[in-house]
């Protein structure tokens, strides 16, 4: 199945976007969690705080479905 990962900020370069400036097309298998998918892409989990899909915040144990557009967010704590 195909999903689309998006990110700006610090994760942008690690994600290596190929669809547009912020989005990467990823082919993966059904049932894979975001943790597994990010691991296969070589994105360190320590650099991903959470994701969001269809306007809802999701943790990294989220299991995507075909066509999902998933935005990943790095930890942010500055003030």
């Amino acid at each position, binding site marked *: 199945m195909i999903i689309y990962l998006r990110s700006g900020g610090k994760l942008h370069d690690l994600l290596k976007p190929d669809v547009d400036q912020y989005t990467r097309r990823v082919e993966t298998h059904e049932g894979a969690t975001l943790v597994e998918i990010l691991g296969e892409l070589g994105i360190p989990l320590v650099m991903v705080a959470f994701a969001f899909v269809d306007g809802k915040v999701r943790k990294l144990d989220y299991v995507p479905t075909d066509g999902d557009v998933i935005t990943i967010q790095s930890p*942010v704590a500055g*003030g």
Partner: protein
Amino acid sequence: MALSNDELKRYARQMGLPHWGRNGQERLRAASVFIAGAGGLGSAAALYLAAAGAGRITLCDPDTVELSNLNRQVLYSTSDVGREKVTAASERLASLNPAAAIVPLSERIDTSSAPDLIAGHDIAIDCLDTLEARFILNRACMALDVPVIYAAVSGFTGQLSFIHPPATPCLECFIPHKNPTEKPQVPGCTTGIMGSLQAAEAIKYLTGIGSTLASCLLIVESMEPRFDILEIERDPDCPACGNQAA
């Protein structure tokens, strides 16, 4: 006490907003706001809250002003470098609005100090710069039933939410215990946007107008640019407010 003629003039360009009026202005004047952190976010939030007429503003930060703060911490001037932040900030805010009571606290927020520092305030503004301190503030405010307006920044990215459990998730429901890997680069425009939005959330809550970002997380990515408002939910396994929380 009714608003004075000076106050009516000073606030004339906001009191005419729908539902704000004299009543909203008096509610704001009676309010007590705790600002945790007088850095980039705290600068913008404090300036706009003082300008709007918040009656009492407590600023809590143990640091002194450094030259590298001045790209984003607009409360301070070059001549303030080396001074206590809360002292310099109090002078600036008092000069902006002499009617505001500014309470400077040059203290670090930790588990033992937080409850006493925050008690007696109507709302807290989270302008801190570490997750550890943010989680301490989150838990202390939850115990005191004080709502928190959370914001955090890195680069051109900002996050914002209105937190008041049990009606909303707490911070630890949606922010994992993961620290950023390095001290962030932050342009002043990002802290300005997010600190201003924190002031807006506080003003809405204190005056009773509009709707807050309760149970929502606003993500601002100014670089793209993109603004997302996301639903967030309470986590039953949250270490701070979940079923197993101490």
